């Protein structure tokens, strides 16, 4: 897995991590908070006695200090986590090492709801993840939708309680509606019922769908959806099966 993941910061060195955080954090912090627009009165009103607005340099210094503090806090949290988790079964401590996408998306998750916060790394994340897409060598995107349904139902894989010699599932129903006969589905992702019927089964749609399952962040930065191919959860063959579940006209997903 380690070698396959491009855009993964290798360093587990705290100092390096902290530095990286500052580098990443600086542009994020520079965006927020957005200054409220002060309405301009046409009449030159009496000047209220106010404290002088901070100069650009002062404001920048304040933002830099906040970014440095945040980076330090992140480094502290990472050190605490390293000391608080134990390797077990197939899960080693390197699961705690973030790649660039995870690092930026954690910041976005933490700060995204703040008023005035603007997330500006979406395009960068999508471009970086788009580069990771690897399509099947035979050029075919559709497998067997019946196999895809099994993969969509299966929730195991990559947990320390799972058998690493058995294939992982996609657990699609945890978050999506697919076959309408399955009523136990989650709603963290959109309903995919009629996915193929609505979009058609063209080569372009097949390629996009395969790519989206392979690496969701190529098309949707900081998606909640795992990067199934990129992170080595599902094989190319498995992704083809799930693509078929979504697009095959015979699939119950597309049944009327």
């Amino acid at each position, binding site marked *: *897995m380690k070698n396959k993941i491009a855009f993964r910061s290798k360093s587990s060195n705290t100092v390096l991590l902290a530095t990286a955080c500052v580098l990443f954090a600086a542009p994020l912090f520079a965006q927020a908070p957005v200054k409220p627009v002060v309405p301009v009165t046409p009449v030159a009103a009496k000047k209220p006695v106010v404290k002088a607005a901070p100069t650009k340099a002062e404001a920048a210094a304040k933002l830099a200090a906040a970014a440095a503090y945040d980076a330090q806090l992140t480094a502290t949290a990472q050190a*605490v*986590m390293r000391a608080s988790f134990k390797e*077990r079964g197939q*899960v080693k401590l390197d699961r705690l090492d973030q790649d660039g996408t*995870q690092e930026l998306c*954690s910041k976005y998750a933490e700060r995204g709801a703040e008023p005035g916060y603007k997330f500006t790394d979406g395009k960068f994340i999508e471009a970086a993840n788009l580069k990771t897409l690897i399509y099947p060598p035979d050029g075919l995107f559709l497998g067997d939708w019946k196999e895809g349904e099994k993969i969509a139902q299966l929730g195991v894989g990559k947990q320390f309680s799972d058998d690493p010699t058995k294939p992982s599932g996609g657990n699609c129903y945890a978050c999506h509606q697919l076959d309408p006969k399955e009523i136990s589905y989650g709603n*963290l992702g959109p309903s995919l019922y009629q996915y193929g019927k609505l979009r058609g089964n063209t080569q372009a749609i097949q390629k996009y769908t395969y790519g989206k399952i392979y690496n969701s962040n190529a098309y949707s930065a900081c998606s909640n959806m795992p990067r199934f191919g990129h992170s080595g959860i599902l094989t190319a063959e498995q992704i083809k099966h799930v693509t078929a579940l979504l697009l095959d006209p015979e699939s119950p997903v597309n049944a009327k």
Partner: protein
Amino acid sequence: MIKRIVTSVLVTVLFSTASIAQNNNQGGDSTIAGIEKYRQALADANPAELWEARGEEMWKQPAGPKNASFEKCDLGLGAGVVKGVYAILPKYFADTDKVQDLESRLVTCMGELQGIAAADATKVVFGSSGVKTDMEALVAYVAGESRNLPIKVSLAHPKEKMAYEVGKKMFFYRGGTHDFGCVTCHGADNSRIRLQDLPNLSKKEPAQRAYSTWPAYRVSQGEVRSFQWRLFDCFRQQRFPQLAFGSEGSVALTMFLAYNANGGALNAPAIKR
């Protein structure tokens, strides 16, 4: 017996909701209503009482190499005080110079008062069929003694504040093979995994509802589960390594979640599916 009854209730409720949900592709609302009915049916008889009673007995009974009870154990409101302590934990303790939650503090008392080494005290902390743990009984008893009290966790001490800040970072920390963090499932309103609803723990009201009902008797497991177990099993599903029992990180995350739930009335041990 109780387990069999509630299982049959579950089956009945799920079947009756299945027919409704099938007529409705977006199914959510009626299914959720059915699950809510199931929860109300459960609340009538909570087997956690058995754990609470066993925990109370253990609290008073001398044990360990030093043959001491817990009655001199300081959980935050003075030696031997049980009433109300769960509402103020985690908190900073000067004797250990650490922020501790209920579970890690109990381990301290076992060591200091009873002479039980931490490694032994934490060897088996999660029960399984045929194995009942001391930890889960004690946790059930102590938490039960704060029933109906408002959660009132303080960040006055710098280490308490730091625990909160570290816990907050952990909550939003996405990683592992699946890019999951706590926030993936617990960062938005009205979310479900399959049919299990997920509290939005970044918001006060749902955080209060969730935190105030742990520890809890889990029907599906036939066990009372501690908050440490709740975090342990979330991280397992998150594809993270194993969260060490009572570790600094586990207490920090508990602090973040408990503080967010401040003001909510404790109703633990509750009963959950």
